[in-house]
């Protein structure tokens, strides 16, 4: 894996954004060959804090993506299982995910793959753990009763099938989860740990998120920053020299 440590939230966000930009440019997408970006999805639609609204306000309205190319799991679908199956098929039809960008929950989950989720799971309906509900309460006026208890989510296996995975982790409250994800073993109680077995994973974090890691780990990866920073240099040539 790569572990990229930036000083704070803003710098970590900027680094991650530049990395994604570079990946898209070097991929050289065309009308016939799309760059497929994967993102975690979940909550039901008809709420201002639904992922649809969240994705619209934070991403889609700022870019000129063709709406037909935006696939979000629909939590209001009639047949939720069919919805999940179609989603998996859509991913396959698109040629697989080139880059999956996600975060980590305080309980170490990726997307809504709560502790105990199979590490080879696919897109499905999940009941949310208490930790996740509490973490999401901030979107619902801190009223726990208003937070949805179920979500549709991509599976751990689904994400593992991506050609590259980027996990963005910021904040001291995520530090223990990061420790469990990268310094402990692969364990379905901390589903992000599955990416230790992925050929191309990159963790982008701020200083606070490293608080539970060994000093040795942090020093090693900080020492590699000159290498990491080359990955976000503006891409002037179209050579694909990322390894």
């Amino acid at each position, binding site marked *: 894996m790569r572990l990229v440590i930036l000083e704070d939230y803003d710098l970590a966000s900027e680094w991650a954004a530049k990395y994604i930009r570079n990946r898209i440019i070097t991929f050289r997408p065309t009308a016939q060959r799309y760059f497929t970006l994967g993102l975690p999805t979940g909550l039901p639609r008809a709420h201002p804090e639904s992922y649809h609204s969240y994705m619209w306000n934070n991403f889609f309205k700022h870019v000129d993506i063709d709406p*037909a190319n935006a696939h979000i799991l629909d939590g209001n679908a009639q047949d939720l299982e069919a919805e999940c199956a179609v989603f998996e098929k859509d991913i396959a039809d698109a040629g697989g995910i080139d880059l999956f960008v996600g975060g980590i929950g305080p309980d170490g989950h990726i997307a809504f793959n709560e502790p105990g989720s199979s590490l080879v799971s696919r897109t499905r309906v999940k009941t949310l753990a208490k930790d996740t509900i509490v973490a999401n309460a901030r979107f619902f006026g801190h009223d726990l009763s208003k937070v949805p208890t179920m979500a549709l989510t991509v599976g751990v296996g689904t994400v593992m099938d991506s050609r590259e995975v980027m996990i963005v982790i910021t904040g001291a409250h995520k530090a223990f989860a990061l420790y469990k994800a990268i310094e402990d073993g692969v364990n379905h109680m901390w589903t992000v740990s599955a990416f230790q077995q992925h050929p191309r994973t990159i963790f982008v974090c701020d200083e606070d998120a490293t608080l539970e890691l060994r000093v040795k780990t942090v020093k090693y990866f900080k020492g590699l920053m000159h290498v990491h920073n080359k990955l976000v240099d503006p891409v002037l040539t179209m050579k694909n020299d990322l390894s």
Partner: protein
Amino acid sequence: MPSNGSVSDAPITQFINCRILKEHTLQREDLWVRDGRILDPEKLFFDEQGYADRQLDCGGAILAPGFIDVQLNGGYGVDFSTPSEDPGAGVAFVAKKILEHGVTSFCPTLVTSPPSVYHKVLPEVKVQSGGVHGAGVLGVHLEGPFISLEKKGAHPEQFLRTFGGSGGVNPLLEVYGGLDNVSMVTLAPELAGSQSVVEELSQRGVTVSLGHSVANLSQAEEAVQQGASFITHLFNAMLPFHHRDPGIVGLLTSNRIPAGRSVFYGMIADGIHTNPAALRIAHRAHPAGLVLVTDAIMAMGLPPGRHTLGQQVIEIQGLHAYVAGNTLTSSPVPNQLTFDSRILNVFWGLGTTTLSGSIATMDMCVRHFQQASGCSVPEALEAASLHPAQLLGISHQKGSLEYGCDADLVLMDDQMVLEATYISGVEVWRK
């Protein structure tokens, strides 16, 4: 990208690079328009998989709802209260010109006139949507003749009337010839028999406004309880505020307004009709009720000189308009007094000093209001758009940039100097 239409084939316009007035602030957001209405882009994206057919770059400007003027007596040589061969054409002419001031909807106003004038003019002035041809007509504002003699202002005394004994709106129907296309009536509530009139007008959906009146606070509050919801040009043509009887002005802070209702008040913010300190007192007492009006007369847009308003002659100098006296002197003795930097001088010899409507334009009023009150730009803009729409009960459609509202817009810079006006999403004027 080609047009897409699962819900409608109409083209979608996206105003980009602008700051829109929404939720009482200026937000850095795009505005989407389809079929003359403001569109929810999130629904468009997810439900229809739609996108804009064209984008209009606003150059960082402010995009706000078009202004609504509920008191406009005429302009550019047209006086709505003077019957001509084609009153409709006169209204249409002014409607087109006021697009330059950012007014997208208005209420043509008739001052106190004889029944013959009402019978001739009213049928010709119809409610209609705006467009390239001009601002939309929301309905006529009838200011008089059921007003107070002592507070007639520039209205002709011989045509003032009282309600008579019968009660109800019959006297009004007789005088006006009907209430079709009427959206507002200004009356003096102290006139005997006014209660049933106010009640019935309100029930008919006509906004009742108190003005040109010597009513005390109780009488005014009674009228509000019967349905009155507006005050015509606050402070002007009414008793001044007194600390033991605030009169109509006291409605701004009255605790006898029925729950769920609000009293709005018109303000002519031309720097002349109201001293800026008085404007600030009213604004601070009841900011949500302030409605900017021009009360502009036919001289608005014309060069200085003498002109006819209703049945009277008025005289303009600079931004002042006065009622001309009966005698003409060939060489008036000038007596130079400067009120503020925009006024040239005032002549006392020729006429009276009774103010006679204003010749300021709506955008001037918005700027002056913001500057005099120190309020924020959103507040100033809302006083000319949201508040009049709320007064007339049309805020779900006009005066706001919420999804589903009519796309009547004004584009302006940070000093609120207008750059363009749009009605139903179509550009109808550009600087």
